[in-house]
């Protein structure tokens, strides 16, 4: 039997909950409230009590804590096994996961083990009277949105694109924490982490002012960074620059990166492929510089500056530095 419950995977880094998990709670709480469903935040490991309380304040009715020391670090094998057991027991109607690297690593395998449908990278999410969740997913580089449903199998699973939904917060909200201890005696973690190299990076989807560098910058990010400092902007890049390892993947804008919602975006030397422009459609004012006056990026811009980034950017920097 399926329960009228929606579960959200709460991804965390120590005691800090991933933004996307909170965003999903925000949207899902809207749905569960409208249809009289309940919303459960699923936590793994042995987090601080405050993490469970925050999960509730951000919209969950209750928390399911799958408690085990070994779950404090992400492990595909151990996470899949513990979630599979819990889901099979309670059979929620839907199970939602943020489309982060770990979230995506987890989702595919878990769905296959559960023999259920999985949608990826949802940007819209609605429910109908039949309890079907309709997930909107960008396809073909964001040209169209496909509306996808999982009619028969449960739970209805999807990953959700970060930066898509809005968080809600109620400091007075209270809810119950149900703790279970998973049986991991027969499960082995088969992928050993030898080294981890991460840094804290500002969530691009929250950036108010952004400068995006593309191939047209010649891959020289130093100038872009300096300009960003002087104009109080954050920086983003197109995929080829992230692929070259010039900046972490978390600064990539586009269909496989982040969507910007900035008030102002300055786009430098970007050709405007669909994979990229789907990531700037929610920006306020878009200003672009490109050598090629026929560049597709200009069809997605409010101000189209035809010119050479390598000349214009240093001049702007010079001007702003002179004024300091």
């Amino acid at each position: 039997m399926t329960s009228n419950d929606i579960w959200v995977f709460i991804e965390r880094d120590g005691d800090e909950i991933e933004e996307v998990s909170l965003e999903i709670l925000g949207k899902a709480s809207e749905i569960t409230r409208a249809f009289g469903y309940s919303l459960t935040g699923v936590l793994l490991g042995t987090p601080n009590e405050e993490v469970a309380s925050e999960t509730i304040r951000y919209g969950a009715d209750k928390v399911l804590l799958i408690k085990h020391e070994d779950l404090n670090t992400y492990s595909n094998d151990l996470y899949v096994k513990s979630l599979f057991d819990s889901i099979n027991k309670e059979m929620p109607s839907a199970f939602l996961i943020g489309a982060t690297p770990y979230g995506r690593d987890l989702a595919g395998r878990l769905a296959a083990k559960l023999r259920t449908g999985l949608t990826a990278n949802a940007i819209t999410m609605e429910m109908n009277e039949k309890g079907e969740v309709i997930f909107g997913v960008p396809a073909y580089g964001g040209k169209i949105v496909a509306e996808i449903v999982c009619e028969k199998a449960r739970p209805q699973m999807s990953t959700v694109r970060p930066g898509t939904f809005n968080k809600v917060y109620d400091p007075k909200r209270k809810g119950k924490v149900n703790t279970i201890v998973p049986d991991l005696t027969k499960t082995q973690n088969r992928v050993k982490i030898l080294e981890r190299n991460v840094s804290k990076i500002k969530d691009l989807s929250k950036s108010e002012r952004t400068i995006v560098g593309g191939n047209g910058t010649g891959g020289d990010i130093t100038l872009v960074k300096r300009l960003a400092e002087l104009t109080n902007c954050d920086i983003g890049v197109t995929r080829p620059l992230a692929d070259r390892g010039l900046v972490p993947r978390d600064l990539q804008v586009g269909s496989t990166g982040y969507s910007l919602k900035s008030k102002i975006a300055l786009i430098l030397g970007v050709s405007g492929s669909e994979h990229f422009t789907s990531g700037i459609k929610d920006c306020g004012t878009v200003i672009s510089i490109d050598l090629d006056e026929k560049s597709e990026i200009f069809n997605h811009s409010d101000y189209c500056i035809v010119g050479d980034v390598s000349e214009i950017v240093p001049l702007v920097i010079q001007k702003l530095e002179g004024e300091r």
Partner: protein
Amino acid sequence: MKNIIVCTKIVPKSENIIFDPTTKRLDRSKAENQINETDKNAIETALRLREENGGKVILLSMGPPFFESYLKLGMAMGADDAILLSDRNFGGADTFPTALVLSTAIRKIGDYDLILAGEESSDAGLGQLPGQIAELLDLPQILFASSVNVEEDKVRAKRTIKGGHETVEARMPAVISVEMHANQPRFPDFKRKKTVDTEHHLTVWGSNDLELAEATTGLKGSFTFVRGLVDINPPQRKRIYIRGDSKEVSSKLVELMREK
């Protein structure tokens, strides 16, 4: 090293796909096809691993018969063999039945150390298939790898995670998805292409060869369905052109950045 199997998908180039907002249909008839971009990175990874460790690189693809000519291009890059999984019953599959067909074929090929795939396909763009294959074969998985090395019976890879990367290790056999642009895929070799065109006989397996019941594959075996397609209307932009020498436009840009 034993077999390295590379899951290879042929996809339409997205620029050439036209969406008709009135009929809400996609017109793929004008679209040229290609080997999925990141699958080329997976093939390149496989070829380099073979150069260092020996073994055989086998391309594996589920799709219609026209995929053959693209698989031949992959063979001209240097793969040793290609197998196409093609059957009317396989059509309309979402991720799960695709993973089922591919993993059944992988078992039939046997004797493998690594299953490689691209990080995601450019048409559906789910990136979920590699994890599903790993589950169905009960193998460890490493997704979004930007480099892959083999040492004795272990595979070591650098994978992208939020905020950076991790180096991880697993015992083979294992399933690995290769990140886009993880390397520079070599071009198909023209001479090799000729040999492949005349001498290679493509293995094609259907439902019967894989002993898969009709209800488990294709549309029938799928859990998800596309209920509708919605056009994303890009916002109307002002498109005000600013021209002039670099000095003039840089002054204008400073003003604009200040105003907004």
